[in-house]
């Protein structure tokens, strides 16, 4: 857990809302949650579902703040399912927590357990979690955070009030960025803000990180569109782009070597790489919309096989081979024209 005394230096942390009222663009969700806050005893387990960077963790932390005030850390256990290995660790930590933390604070008769990325848990782990929730429900409340609620087993879903977070509103994002820029004494030009919002696709975390990096580029305190483009270029996954291009230009061996580089040096998993491929394909300006759609179809197929198969490097290699064939067919279609 972060030390509270230190001032947060990453802007995403520094400007993370402390109360529900400060949360950007989630009026409906905030209103319902505030109703629970008025009488905390009635608060059920919560499930916050939605795409990354839309404020799920923020909302969960806000709830902790609202419930326990300054002392929230003593009454809140924050776990990340994708970091904790196996349900046993999760179970142990929850057990320890409920043993050593005084359950209840003032008129709030429970402690809070925030389980981030809970959709990363396997089926059996979720079943065990369900049991933990049952046993602990008198003394603790769970907030489960996930990208897809469908990946959570039914029995858990039915125990939770589910809130869905959708892509953030562009205007609200721009306003929020401007607001941060003002506090940091940075002049953020409107086109630059526009460019950041475009790039981040409704992910406020990406947007704020991009803004902070861009202002580190310009000591003078003016962030223009050029700087933003530079940052986005530098921060985007170059190796992934290289891999895609090599494959499309028919150099399969080189593409595959790059793939092993990405996996080996950075420890990216197959599904992370495939997600990045998907993202990069749509940014490539030299492909027509039809070609992008065709490639996306291929990606989808192999994304699925990846979840079924045993070796992600083989599935990715197979996808790159499909790209190479696709690249050749484009070439041939130009030749005949």
């Amino acid at each position, binding site marked *: 857990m972060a030390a509270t005394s230190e001032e947060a230096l990453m802007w995403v*942390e520094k400007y993370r809302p402390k109360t529900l009222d400060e949360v950007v663009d989630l009026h409906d969700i905030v209103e319902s949650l505030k109703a629970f806050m008025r009488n905390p005893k009635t608060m059920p387990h919560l499930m916050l579902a939605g795409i990354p960077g839309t404020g799920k963790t923020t909302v969960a932390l806000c709830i902790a703040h609202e419930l326990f005030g300054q002392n929230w850390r003593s009454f809140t256990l924050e776990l990340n399912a*994708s970091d904790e290995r196996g349900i046993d660790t999760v179970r142990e930590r929850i057990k320890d927590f409920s043993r050593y933390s005084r359950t209840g604070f003032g008129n709030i008769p429970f402690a809070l357990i925030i389980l981030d990325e809970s959709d990363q848990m396997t089926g059996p782990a979720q079943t065990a979690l369900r049991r933990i929730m049952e046993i602990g429900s008198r003394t603790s409340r769970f907030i489960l955070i996930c990208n897809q609620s469908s990946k959570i087993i039914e029995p858990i879903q039915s125990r939770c009030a589910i809130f869905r977070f959708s892509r953030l509103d562009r205007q609200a994002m721009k306003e929020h960025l401007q607001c941060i820029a003002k506090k940091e004494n940075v002049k953020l030009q409107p086109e630059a803000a526009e460019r950041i919002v475009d790039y981040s696709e409704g992910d406020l975390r990406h947007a704020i990180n991009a803004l902070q*990096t861009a202002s580190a580029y310009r000591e003078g305190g003016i962030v223009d569109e050029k700087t933003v483009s530079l940052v986005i270029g*530098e921060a985007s996954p*170059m190796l*992934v782009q290289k891999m895609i291009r090599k494959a499309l230009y028919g150099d399969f061996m080189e593409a595959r070597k790059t793939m092993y580089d990405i996996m080996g040096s950075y420890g990216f998993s197959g599904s*992370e790489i495939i997600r990045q491929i998907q993202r990069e394909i749509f940014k490539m300006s030299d492909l027509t919309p039809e070609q992008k759609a065709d490639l996306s179809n291929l990606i989808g197929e192999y994304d699925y096989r990846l979840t079924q198969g045993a070796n992600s490097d083989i599935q990715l*290699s197979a996808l790159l*081979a*499909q790209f190479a064939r696709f690249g050749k067919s484009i070439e041939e279609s130009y030749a005949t024209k």
Partner: protein
Amino acid sequence: MQRNELLWVEKYRPKKIQDVVGNEEAKELFVEWLKNKRHTKKAVLLYGPPGVGKTALVNAAANEFGFTIIEMNASDTRSEKAVNAVAKPATSYVALDNFSGSTKSSGNLLFLDEVDGIAGNEDRGGVAAILKIVEESLVPVILAANDPNIDKLRPLKKVCLLVRFQQVRIPLIIALLQKICLLEHVHAEFEALERIAQNSRGDVRSAINDLQSLSETNRTLTLQDTVVLTSRNKDVSMDETLRGFFSAKSVAEASSLLSYSSVDYDDFLLSVSDNLPRRYMDPGELAAAYDFVSQADVFRGRIGTENWHLLKYFYNALAKAAAVNPQSYKPFEFISPPIRVMTLFWTKSRRSMLDAICSKIGVQCHVSKETAKEDFVPYIKEILIKQKKSPLIAYFKFTPEEVDFLIKMSRF
């Protein structure tokens, strides 16, 4: 089925030293050491090819002289700790049994089988620990190995009496097989037994196993029945299997080859994936073949650890990958060792560095390591490049090495 109850190699394991077939000199040397010469050398190293009776001799001798065998073999991890845990107590309490008044027991006997299996990393300190055990031991220590010429065993050779085992001569094996046939009521042609014995190349264990599997279905054994032996016993290596696989003229040929070969199918799947682009130069063919390999991998995933009945679909999909276009086959050089193993091996330290960085970010920013890697590292890296003395370094508690790593991290 009564006959299936016990493996014959177990059932007919020698009870007495004289029952151990062949290697008379070695037997004599060993027995002499065990009886009288233990003061000259503290331990004995039995070495020779597999299946010639090293373990059998130790068991028979222990049985005959009343030793209790404390055994460790290659399946146990022989780190210093593990060796000490088992071997230390076993070798330190020689006197206790003698006081108990039982005349039969001669005490313990420590038997370390397959000592050449001690590998670099996991068994670190293993050789030294064994050495120490030999020096301190109060009971006989017996080591067995297939290949005694491995460098790391050299220290052991100095303190051990070396006893060499050779392949068992064919007539002796035939005689043993005849004896077993008699006891099991199998009517076997002499030529059939001769064939089995020759095929075993002096390995008694494999000869007995072959005899059992051939006479499993009926109680008569003819030379004709031994025809299957060639394919069974011939160990088709990875390279041979790959060569046969990639040059296959049809799906049927590739798939029959796969069912004969004894290579590990997980290794084989990886090797096929590695070498596929060398086999198919045409992007269309490569994509088609890779599609089948991908399907095979999906079946491998579904098999998991229990659904082995799906293995035939795995083979089928893989075989299709071999025969996308038999006409385009040209011999080529195989890639080895597997690319994945190489890449992941060389980059392990880099990954653990990045992993440490990501968990530091995760703690401060309430995100998982994965999210930190995707959403924060690309930006933090850029900020650090621009501002070498950024307060972020202290904020995240990055070490100088980690800062250096982030700055030098190639763009990805």
